[in-house]
């Protein structure tokens, strides 16, 4: 279990997270939604321990970072490292040795090519494969569906559900609401660093409608399309 209590984060005078209170249980999938700049990535970075913050983040597993699979929105790859070496690097970092990487290449990636030559989607699939092979207890997936083809998105959805079945904690952010409504047990809505609401599965439809109304407003009319 991960518990966030009164989390605040500032960058200089800019307050990017305000009084965040959340709880993430084992065997559950949590979505975090919000516009660009709402604070999703900062929240994830705070949980991972990559940012300093005010407040408390308590985890049953300690230290959390050593059992956390972190997929960043835009994973960085060294210029001359192959896909296989990238996976090995991340597994070595967690002392997971002797993994049959070729057998576990479920996205059929060209693992002997330099990762920097991969497309956006392939890079994301490589990063996902690597954190899955680390055998983590908790996963933070920041926009895992972004740039990934439909076939792989189907696989990814099934992987997330499998992680839930394996009693892992999964946090996902996505700009495609359906990918969250298909997988999540609870969705947290962030707006300008504030936790606007937390919604259970049965109310996802209402949340989607509310987000649509808020986001669209009268913007389309303003265009005066003819």
């Amino acid at each position, binding site marked *: 279990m991960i518990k966030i209590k009164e989390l605040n984060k500032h960058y200089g005078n800019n307050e990017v997270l305000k009084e965040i209170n959340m709880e993430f249980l084992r065997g559950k999938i949590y979505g975090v939604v919000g516009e660009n700049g709402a604070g999703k990535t900062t929240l994830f970075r705070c949980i991972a321990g990559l940012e300093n913050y005010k407040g408390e983040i308590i985890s049953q597993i300690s230290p959390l970072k050593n059992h956390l699979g972190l997929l*960043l929105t835009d994973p960085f790859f*060294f210029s001359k490292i192959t896909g296989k070496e990238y996976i090995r690097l991340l597994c*070595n970092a967690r002392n997971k040795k002797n993994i049959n990487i070729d057998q576990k290449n479920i996205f059929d990636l060209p693992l002997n090519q330099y990762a920097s030559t991969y497309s956006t989607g392939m890079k994301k699939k490589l990063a996902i494969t690597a954190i899955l092979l680390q055998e983590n207890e908790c996963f933070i997936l920041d926009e895992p569906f972004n740039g990934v083809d439909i076939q792989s998105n189907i696989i990814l959805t099934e992987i997330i559900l499998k992680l839930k079945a394996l009693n892992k904690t999964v946090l996902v952010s996505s700009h495609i609401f359906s990918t969250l409504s298909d997988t999540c047990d609870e969705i947290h809505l962030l707006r300008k660093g504030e936790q606007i609401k937390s919604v259970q599965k049965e109310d996802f439809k209402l949340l989607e409608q509310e987000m649509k109304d808020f986001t669209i407003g009268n913007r389309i009319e303003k265009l005066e399309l003819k």
Partner: protein
Amino acid sequence: MKDYFELQYVLTNRKIKEAGLTPLLGSILGLTAFVLLSEYFFHKIEFAKYLVILVCLSFQFRLSEKDRTDFLLSTYGDKLKNKIRVLENLIISTPFVFIIVYKSLFPEAIILLFCSIIIALFSFRTSLNFTIPTPFSKNPFEFTTGFRKTFLILPLAYALSVIAINVDNFNLGIFSILLMFLITLSYYSKPEEEFYVWVNVDTPKSFLMKKMMIATKNSTLLTIPISLGLLICYPAEYNLILLFFFIGILFLWAMVLAKYSAYPSEISLPEGIIIAFALSFPPLILLVIPYFYPKSIKNLRLILND
């Protein structure tokens, strides 16, 4: 064209400011360091003139990178692009030519100027499409990526050792060991993204130990053909060969520690000066290592949440 060079001037000044210096002071210090280092090489190494030319050409090769020249071509057109590139290479070669002329090596200076102009007219793809095999695949990433980036320079160190043995020049052989270590030092010159440190389960101490062990193991693998060759051909000089080998290892450790003592920032002037001092007087390395170690531990503690 004037705009382009004005922009380059601004960018260079910005880099100097990022290193914590004023542009004027940075330029003076840079030029002084360049002159002193060149003098040092000419004083210590027999083949320093080739080294100076090689360093100059390697900078110019980088500027001829295909994507870069394609950008210049699409922005300025063919004629202006060539003018810019020639001028860039001439600016780069100026301090090198100055040193060579100062040493009365006039034919070499003409050859360097000629090569500078020729290189400017071509573009090269520095990143190859095929994957260069590496013996360091099991423990990514410094030697894995570094080996591939310096793939064309590594044979030079081996070639120098072969020449050293053939012409019976022991000093050149020692230089080839040091050159190999110099190349491996460059693998630790840039900080990696925070994520790649954060992801480790190690404590700061075990993290550093692991990094230093890998650096020792891999650099030994790279230098062993040279060291063995020299040991076979100059068995009486085994103590000198081993001494320089261990000095190389110590510098590699110092470099690893220097990198993490500045982390997550790049190694900047203070660390650079300390390393440069140690290079000019190697026994200093025994003080440099314990100086960098606690600083590295402190920085890593923040990221590894220890």
